[in-house]
Structure formats: C-alpha cells, structure tokens
C-alpha cells in the first residue's frame, strides 16, 4: 500500500456488509437443531436457596442448572466468586439460577413464570454508602490498595498548613447501551462445542469454557460474530453467557441460542462502577497544594469480576495529569448485593478524572485563579515521576494542546462574553469548562508480559494474499481497517490483499483481549514486526506463516504489592473545552460547543480516529450530565433506553477536534492507544462548564437537571 502518510483514511473493511445490513450478527443466525435458552433469575438480592421447583416441561423442553456443569461452578475471570448457575447463595437480583431450553420462546417465557424457588432471605447491602460503613465486615472489602507518601509526613505537613480542604465526590452508574444486545450461541457437535457470539475477548471465553466444561483445549472453539458495540460491556460479561449456552448445549445435545432483550440487558449486565472519591488537601496561604490524600471506593456489585483491576486504574489516575507534592492514595472495591460492575471504556479512569478535575477546579476557586491556569501550574512534564515512582519519559505536548484551544476558543474573551450574557439573561446561563487528562495504554504494569503474552501470526497463501491471525475483536472501533492497513503498508501490498477474518480460536493464537487501549499499540506493533519478518522472507507463490511474540520493554519494574514502578509503557493525552447553556428554570443543560485536542502518538487512520473522538466524547459528556442509572433496593430502576437517556442526535453537537503527532517508539508507526482516552475528558469538562455557568460547585456526576435545580434551590435558600 502506497500511502504517503499512514494516517490517510482508507475505506473500512467491513463497510459493505454493515451498510446493507446483510452482515449477520449473532441474533441473525439460525443453525440446525437450534433451541433457545432463557434464564431464570433471582428475584431477591441476597439469600439462600432452599428448594427449586420447575414446572412439568413439555416434550422438547429441558431445564439446565448447576448440576449439569461438568467442571466447577464458576465463571473463570480472576477470582472464583461468580457462579455460572447460582445453586446455593444468590447475591443479586437477576443472578442466573437455571436455564430453560426449547424451541418456542413464547412457551419458554410462560414456563419461566412457573418456576418456584423457596428462599431464606438475608439482609442485603444495597448501597456503596452502606458498604463503606461495613467495610471491615467479612467479605465486604473485595480488593484494596494503598500507596504514596507516608501518612506521618502528610500529617506533619497538614499541621503546618494554612487550610485543609476536604471534599467528597460521587459518580454514578454508566450503562454501555451497545446497540446490539448481548447474544451467544453454542453450536453442538459430537466432538466439540463451538461458541459464537458478540464479544471482545475470545480467549477469556475459551479459558472460562475449558474450566466450566472440564475439557481439553480442542473440545471448545470460540468464534466472534460481528459485534454491535462493546465499550467494555462485552469484555468479561460474555464469558458467563458462553458458559450458560455451552453447558446447556452439552446437556441437551442441541445448539443453544441465548439473546437478551434490551430490558434484560440493562438490568443484569455489568456497568461502570459507581464510585465515591474523598479528597483531603493541605493548602498554603496562596492556595498552593502542599499535600493530598485520596480515597477511592468502588461499588463492585455482587462479585469481584474485574473490579480489582478497575480499582488499580482508578488509583493510578487519582492525581490526574498533575504533579502533586506529597500524594497518598488508597482504594477499595466493596461488595454490595447489586448487579456486578465491570469493564467500561476508561476502566476506572473516568471516575478518577471526574473527581480530581472537580477537586482541582474547586481549589482554584479558593486560590482565586482561573481553573485552567491553576491546573497548568501542576501539569506534569517530561521526566517527572508518576505517583507510583515511575517516569513520564516521553515528550508531553499538553501545553501546546492547551494553547491551541485557548486560541481556537478565544477562551478569555468568551469568559467575559458569557459573564455579560449571564448578567442580562435571567433564565439561561452560559459557561465554559476545561478538562486535562491522560490514559495509560495497555495493561497495567507487567500484565502484558506476565498474563497476556500475546502472540500474532500472519499467513500468506499461495496466491500471495495475507491474512491476520489474531484474537482481537472489531466491535466497531475499526481494527479490521487499521490493523490490516499497518500490515499492508509494511508489506507494501494493496490494502485489498490483506484480510482479517472474524477470529476463531481454532485458527488464531491468543493475541490478548480487545481491551485497555492495547490493540493498536501492542497488537499493532506485533503485526508490524510480523509483517517486517514476512517481508524479509517473502517468496511469491508459496504459503508462508510468521509468528511474533510480545517483547517487554523493561522500564521501572511494576510491583503490584507496593504499587510502585511504571504502571504503563506509554500515555495518551487530551484536552477538552466545553461550552454549555443551562436553563435555570428546568436545570436542562444544552451543549453549545465542544473542542477536543488529543495526542495518541500517531494516528493510524484519520477517519477511524475521528470516529473514536466523536463517539467517545459523546459518551463521556453524557456521563457527566445526561445518563442516569440508579438502583433501589438492589433493583436497577431504568430498564429502557429512554429512561436511562443516552444522547440522541439532537443532544450532541459537532465537535472540533485536532490530533497532535508525537510518535511513540514502541507503537506501530508511532501509534499509542486512543479508544478509551476520548471518553475520559467529557464529564469533567461538562461539569466545569456547568459550574462556570451557574457559579456553583457540584460534588457529583451526572449533574442532572434534578441536581442543578436542587442546588439552585439551596442557594436561593441561603441567599434568602
């Protein structure tokens, strides 16, 4: 491929099938001898099952439960705390207890209603607040870490400080609302079970299946179907569904399809962890930061899942993009008897950035300095240590990116204009806010070296067509295009001669999961190297295959126990400026202008990158003011898309974005991660803009109209 610049956009590989709707997602498939599965779910939050009564089943209908699992009854993720079918204890409303399978969904739904279970109910923990109070009780703290400056030193600093500011900040659930609900199919064959569906991580599923089915490597095979959006929601959750359909298929010797209804998907699948963040900051007379202590509490839900890893990322980002003197942080994942929370684009970082940007913004007010100016005083620079005694060793372009947006937005002038506008307009108030953020690319610490150990292959056929053999999923983010492009350019082949079939574990090695902003940077780099290798040994008309394995660039070694070292090999960076107009009668927030600058090393495809920017930012902004999900006595309240409220086309505005080049040596063509970064700055910028408009601080996201009206009401009360 002869592109002058790798960033020049090419047509997407999967465009045709998607635009015509003829690409078959999992729910579009029908296979021979297929039955449907439906899950009976716990109606109670916490209790012990005393007995299960299943109604008489018509011919062809069967029940599948814990006793049908050949292996141990848990979904292999990290800890063994998540049953495939709960058969003793249930820990949340919606936990799967058994599955009914048969041909006709209508009959299955009818039968589900007749399942009777006797319980012994126990007092559940429903909220993060309750869990924090009980965090010393057995089983409530599911993970915790602590690191940073010694508390003795901090205590001494605090004693000499002019002022100590304490703030508490809350973040809510966020639901992925991938357009395609979760779906999984187990195809029954005599010698193997093929599990196919909507997923991000083929080998997570395969490993979970090998454990659950207690079988050999060749007895199960995992195939990705076109995946209608993931955003982390199809990272670990599909492993459970895969176990359900595979166990069922084995038990009934038929192929079993499980597809969720939207409301089922909204109520029982993982969400972004609600969090509480506590800040305690010592200031001098001028408002300069002397020390800072942060506590992060994540609501893990009923089982730990990936929550410990999410907490790690939350903590690693707890100081934001700032060099804070004498920084100390600790964090907890706490158990509640609610739907388990899990991976979601940003993976703990969005909570932390919302919190720290809010806190720093509020500190700037005390120092009487413009928030952005105050933030810049503390901005990390190349060579600075990270909060875990790692190092920011690569160039940082944040100052250039900020300057650029100050000019583009005419920030200072706009501030004055908005003040004038607000002075004259009783109902509507305008504000501008900013956020500064980064995202650590790839797995935390030595995860790539110790846990993932990625392998990629390139296969060349006799007719000199090259195909990628990797286990990564395109879920819409565009890696079919970008990774194919890297290989084509490296081999100097026409883009059309490089293909990337939907991955199948029978064909592809484990190149790791499709998560953590690692695919382009880590897998892309491996593919680049593989392509170089293939090029070197290229022989026309001959079948060839090359393999590449992950090589770790040793930096300051990561130690998970002490929480020290380089947490990430590289960081991507971003700056957002957001302008809003708030209706003070209704509390409704209207986005007016959104500006975004990013640095992701090198863009592999401009159009794909813009898609990540616009889509990620839309989710991030909405996380800050629009999307609201709550749980009441263990029950998710918003069961429909409309009640939850992700943005429509009329809620989003055109986004002015720019991407700065800063090639990274260990990324393909210099590329780093980009997918998660784009979400992170949205919420804190929108909060800052709302605060600017109303001249009122907030201590939570989402800042819904309800929160705004409440705060205006309180302020009115104070002002008499």
């Amino acid at each position, binding site marked *: 491929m002869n592109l002058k610049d790798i960033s020049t*956009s090419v*047509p*997407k590989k*999967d*465009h*045709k*099938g*998607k*635009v*015509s*709707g*003829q*690409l*078959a*997602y999992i*729910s*579009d498939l029908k296979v021979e001898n297929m039955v449907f599965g439906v899950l009976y779910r716990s109606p109670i939050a916490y209790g012990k099952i005393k007995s299960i009564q299943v109604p008489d089943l018509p011919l062809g209908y069967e029940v599948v439960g814990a006793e049908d699992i050949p292996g141990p009854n848990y979904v292999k993720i990290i800890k063994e705390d998540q049953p495939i079918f709960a058969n003793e204890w249930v820990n949340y409303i919606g936990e799967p207890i058994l599955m009914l399978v048969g041909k006709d969904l209508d009959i299955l739904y009818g039968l589900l209603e007749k399942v009777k279970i006797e319980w012994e109910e126990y007092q559940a923990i429903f909220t993060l607040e309750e869990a924090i109070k009980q965090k010393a009780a057995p089983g409530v703290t599911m993970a915790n870490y602590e690191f940073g400056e010694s508390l003795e030193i901090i205590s001494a600093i605090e004693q000499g400080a002019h002022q100590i500011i304490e703030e508490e900040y809350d973040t809510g659930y966020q639901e*992925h*609302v*991938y*357009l*395609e*609900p979760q779906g999984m199919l187990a195809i029954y064959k005599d010698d193997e079970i093929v599990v196919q569906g909507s997923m991000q991580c083929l080998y997570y599923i395969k490993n979970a299946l090998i454990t659950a089915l207690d079988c050999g490597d060749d007895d199960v095979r995992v195939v990705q179907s*076109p*995946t*209608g*959006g*993931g*955003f982390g929601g199809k990272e670990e959750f599909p492993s459970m569904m895969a176990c359900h359909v595979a166990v069922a298929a084995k038990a009934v010797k038929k192929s079993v399809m499980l597809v969720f*209804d*939207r409301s089922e998907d909204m109520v029982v699948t993982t969400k972004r962890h609600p969090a509480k963040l506590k800040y305690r900051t010592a200031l001098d007379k001028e408002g300069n930061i002397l020390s800072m202590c942060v506590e992060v509490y994540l609501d893990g839900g009923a089982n730990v899942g990936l929550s410990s890893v999410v907490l790690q990322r939350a903590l690693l980002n707890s100081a934001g993009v700032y060099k804070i003197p004498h920084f100390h942080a600790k964090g907890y994942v706490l158990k509640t008897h609610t739907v388990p929370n899990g991976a979601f684009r940003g993976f703990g970082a969005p909570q932390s950035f919302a919190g720290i940007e809010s806190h720093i913004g509020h500190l700037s007010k005390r120092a009487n300095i413009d928030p952005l100016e105050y933030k810049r005083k503390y901005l990390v620079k190349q060579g600075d240590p990270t909060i875990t005694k790692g190092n920011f060793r690569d160039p940082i372009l944040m100052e250039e990116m900020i300057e650029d947006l100050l000019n583009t937005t005419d920030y200072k002038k706009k501030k004055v204009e908005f003040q004038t506008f607000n002075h004259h307009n009783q109902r509507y108030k305008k504000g501008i806010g900013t956020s500064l953020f980064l995202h650590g690319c790839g797995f935390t610490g030595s995860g790539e070296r110790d846990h993932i150990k990625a392998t990629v292959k390139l296969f060349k056929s006799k007719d000199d067509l090259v195909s990628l053999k990797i286990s990564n999923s395109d*879920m*819409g*983010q*565009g890696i079919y295009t970008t990774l194919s492009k890297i290989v084509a350019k490296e081999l100097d082949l026409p883009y059309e001669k490089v293909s990337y079939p939907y991955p199948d574990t029978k064909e592809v090695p484990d190149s790791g999961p499709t998560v953590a902003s690692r695919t382009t940077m880590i897998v892309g780099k491996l593919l680049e190297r593989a392509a170089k290798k293939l090029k070197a040994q290229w022989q026309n008309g001959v079948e060839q295959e090359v393999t590449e394995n992950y090589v770790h660039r040793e930096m300051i070694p990561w130690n998970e126990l002490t929480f020290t070292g380089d947490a990430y090999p590289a960081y991507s960076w971003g700056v957002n400026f957001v302008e809003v107009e708030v209706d003070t009668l209704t509390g409704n927030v209207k986005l007016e202008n959104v500006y975004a600058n990013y640095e992701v090393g090198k863009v592999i495809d401009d*159009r*794909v990158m*813009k*898609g990540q920017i*616009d*889509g*990620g*930012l*839309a*989710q991030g902004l909405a996380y800050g003011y629009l999307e609201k999900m709550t749980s009441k006595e263990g029950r998710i309240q918003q069961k*429909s*898309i*409309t009640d939850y409220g*992700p*943005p*429509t*086309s*009329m809620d*989003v505005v*055109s*986004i002015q974005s720019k991407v700065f080049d800063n090639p990274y040596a260990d990324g393909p063509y210099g590329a780093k991660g980009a997918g998660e970064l784009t979400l992170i700055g949205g919420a804190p910028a929108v909060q800052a803009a709302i605060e600017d408009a109303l001249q009122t601080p907030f201590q939570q996201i989402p800042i819904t109209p309800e929160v705004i009206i409440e705060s205006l009401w309180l302020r009115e009360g104070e002002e008499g």
Partner: protein
Amino acid sequence: MITFTLNGRKVETDAPPSARLLDVIRDEYLLIGTKEGCGEGECGACSIFVNNLLQNSCLIPIGSIEGAEIVTIEGIMESDQFKILDESYSEAGGVQCGYCIPGMVMASAALLAQNPHPSEAEIREGISGNLCRCTGYNMIVDAINLAAKKGDGLWQKK
C-alpha cells in the same frame, strides 16, 4: 391471513395479528437487515417504510398492515439512492459497529425523500429516533449531508 407487499412482492402470512412486523420480517422472510435493538420504538434499529413512511417495525402489529407496502433495507439495496448513501456513509466514516446502520440508512433515505436539502438541525431531527452509541452521530450527519449533495436531484423521485 394477512396480505401485504414486502419489497415489491405480494406476500401472505398467517402470523397472529398481534405479531410484530419485525419478527415476521426476520423469522418468516429471513430478512436480517432489520435489527432489534430495544423492541420498544426507542432505538430505530428496526426502521422500515410503511407506505413510504419511516416506522419502527417492532411496534407494528402485523394485523394492521393489510394491503400496505412494506420496504426494508433489502428493498432499497439496489436503488441509486442507496448507492449514494452507501458511498456517503463510507466517505464520511458514519459506520462503526454497524448495528444501527440499516435503520439509520432507512431514516436517512426517508429524510432526504422528504427534504432533499436538509439543514444540520433537520438532519439531526430526521435521525433522532435512531440511536447510535459508537459515532456520536456527527459523522452520520456528515454522511447525510454528503448524500444530499451527491444525490442532488435524485431524492424526490419516488
């Protein structure tokens, strides 16, 4: 027995009158371009035309469409208008996961047929019933804008 026209072909179904048109299209006629995203008229993934009007097939009981002309994405796939939309969505980068796209294309075609030169606000309104979680809509808005220009003169002839 209910008779209607599906993508220009007269068809009959003995599905119960309350059956959702969406299920009939997908299960009986095996047309997979019409997707189910919510089943409550909140996402637009199942958008189709009923007598040339954009509607959500998940909310239509089959008994109500006796004699109606139903067109799905498969029914417009060969049209010149579709070709323009296909190209425009590709050029503008409007497609990511693809699940909303057939519905989005139907909404785009409906909008342009009614209003061949829509403003940005009109485009946003035209697709406001079609949820997309990947793109943040802007590149879809660009695609429709592009299609309006590329297909100038083509949209209104029906």
